[in-house]
């Protein structure tokens, strides 16, 4: 059985932190809170967390310096940076400081939750898995081929990468922005539902001739690929 994920929120806005902690607990995630940089750094060094959610602007020690200090101490807990500064260059500086993901404020909680879950899972997922499997769907990363029930499904390169990312995070919700970031490697706001159309094309290819749906739309959040029969995660 999967153990419950444990995260630390370092955020000086008490109200926002309380809301986040409550929402994370409802999602089944154990949640600690530190309200300034120094105590956050202390807690993150003393305890073991799966993910750190760090606000960029903090009293006593700013978020980026907390992260670089942790990395200097050889603590490599995945970090998600929250920031009111949401522009391209801020993201770059945040990731350069050692952050693993960056979410500008204001954000939808579903977006944050999805990203935290993917980051927390990252520790356990061996990147070197050559074949991803969800139910009867198989994706071979080496030969770039996809099969379902042993039948080859031809995919465009981008569709392959889209499915690869979804399957890498099988059982997790991935949001539209996460898809744009990880599959297309862009961080801008595409305004229209471009991602949805790509996903629905992919869905029709992998589900058209089969009974069991695998790729689900999670309302108000994003997408998830999952085999309902095995009920993993």
């Amino acid at each position: 059985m999967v153990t419950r994920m444990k995260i630390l929120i370092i955020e000086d806005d008490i109200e926002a932190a309380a809301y986040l902690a409550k929402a994370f607990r409802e999602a089944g995630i154990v949640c600690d809170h530190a309200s300034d940089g120094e105590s956050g750094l202390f807690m993150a060094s003393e305890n073991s967390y799966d993910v750190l959610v760090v606000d960029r602007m903090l009293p006593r020690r700013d978020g980026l310096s907390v992260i670089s200090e942790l990395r200097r101490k050889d603590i490599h807990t995945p970090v998600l940076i929250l920031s009111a500064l949401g522009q391209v260059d801020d993201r770059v500086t945040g990731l350069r400081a050692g952050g693993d993901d960056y979410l500008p404020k204001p954000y939808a909680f579903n977006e944050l939750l999805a990203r935290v879950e993917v980051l927390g899972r990252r520790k356990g997922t061996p990147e070197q898995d050559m074949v991803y499997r969800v139910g009867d769907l198989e994706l071979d990363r080496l030969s770039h081929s996809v099969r379902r029930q042993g039948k080859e499904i031809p995919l465009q390169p981008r569709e392959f990468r889209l499915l690869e990312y979804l399957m890498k995070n099988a059982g997790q919700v991935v949001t539209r922005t996460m898809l744009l970031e990880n599959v297309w490697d862009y961080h801008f706001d595409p305004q229209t539902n471009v991602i949805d159309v790509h996903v629905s094309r992919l869905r029709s290819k992998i589900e058209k001739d089969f009974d069991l749906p695998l790729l689900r739309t999670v309302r108000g959040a994003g997408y998830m690929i999952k085999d309902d029969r095995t009920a993993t995660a």
Partner: protein
Amino acid sequence: MSKIGVLFRTTAVRLSALYLILFSLCAAFLVFYVTGMSERLLQQQTRDAVTAEVTQIEQVYTRAGINGLLRSLERRARQPGANLYVIAGPSGEILAGNVASLEPGLLDREGWTDKPFAYQRYTDETRQDSHVALAHVLVLDNGLRILVGRDLQEPQKFRALVRQALMVALGIMGIGALIIWFAIGRNALKRIDRMSEASTKIMAGDLSQRLPMSGSGDEFDRLSESLNAMLERIEKLNEGLRQVSDNIAHDLKTPLTRLRNKAEAALARKGTSQRGALEEIIGESDQLIRTFNALLMISRVEAGSAAAEMSEVDLSQIVSDCVELYEPVAEDVGLRLEADVEPGMVISGNRELVGQALGNLLDNALKYAEGATDPQIKVSLGKRDGKVFLSVADHGPGVPEDKREDVVKRFVRLDESRSKPGTGLGLSLVEAVMEMHHGDLDLAATDPDAAENGKGLTVHMVFPPPAS
């Protein structure tokens, strides 16, 4: 005094004064050193010559006795430019030689005179015409004293001449420096006065003022030029800021009011599920956040803070990525997205921002060309006149020529009813991005000859030629 005082406080004058002093000290040291050294050398030569003569005289005395010595001295004394020769009795009275008078007591001691001494020659007319010499005194066994000396006038004249030349040169330098200080300093002061006059006006709020330029292209002009460029930028940013705050007040009030109305309406519906209303409210606030993000992004791009993140980017790749990203959506709404991309087009730019800008253009094209008779949207990338053109052409209703400048402004939307979703900021961001890339944004009709409301719109993003 105050004028001179101000003058002295200018950097040019201070520096030149410092250089003048340093140079004078060096020159003075050099001259004194050179004259001192050469004097010592000349004295050494004098001593050597005198010593040689004394040795000869001693030899003559031992060989030919007193008479031979006297004859020899007589001969030597008569030669032109001769050395000094004195033969004196044991008590010091001068018996023969070419010297009229000597400092008293000079002949008492055998050997070199301690220091140069004054004497007079027979040829001298007055007592003022005294000479200075260095001499060696020889005492013979019969008590006679013989003095052999050499005049020091030449080296002393030489030294005096060099020192005089130094004084004159320093004087000329000083006067020259004063004149140059005055000319440069006064000119500089005048121009600085004009500049501070202009900046006082600017500080008082008249941002359209510019610093004066003389047109000579010197450092003051260069300074004025860059300050003027800075002012231009400030003026523009200021203008943009004012426009934005006006527009924010106007355009954000509308969705906020809508948001409030929805919340109120939901509150009024007692008892029933408010889920739907809450979802609508979240949707509405997401749209607001999106508008804010776009606004912030525009002002950040305009402020140039993202310029630091410029690098070599493959524009062809970005265009292919975006076309690929939007292609399915286009197909969904019955449009055909076509790309004509010249490969390997590398520019200096920001990948994310160019991607966002192109995304905005494609988004607009999809929104406004939906249902057009010609479903083609063509994205082309190529070089023309050395510049890189990235164009998106649709066959939708287009933008009337007189509105083309307006649509780029923030919050300006031609569609008054606002039936299509959007922030009204898309093109503003594209323009800001193009400005950041030192490029241009051009709007044109795709089919200029078509009927009104069917001309289509072509937007060109024109990038400067890549620096190779």
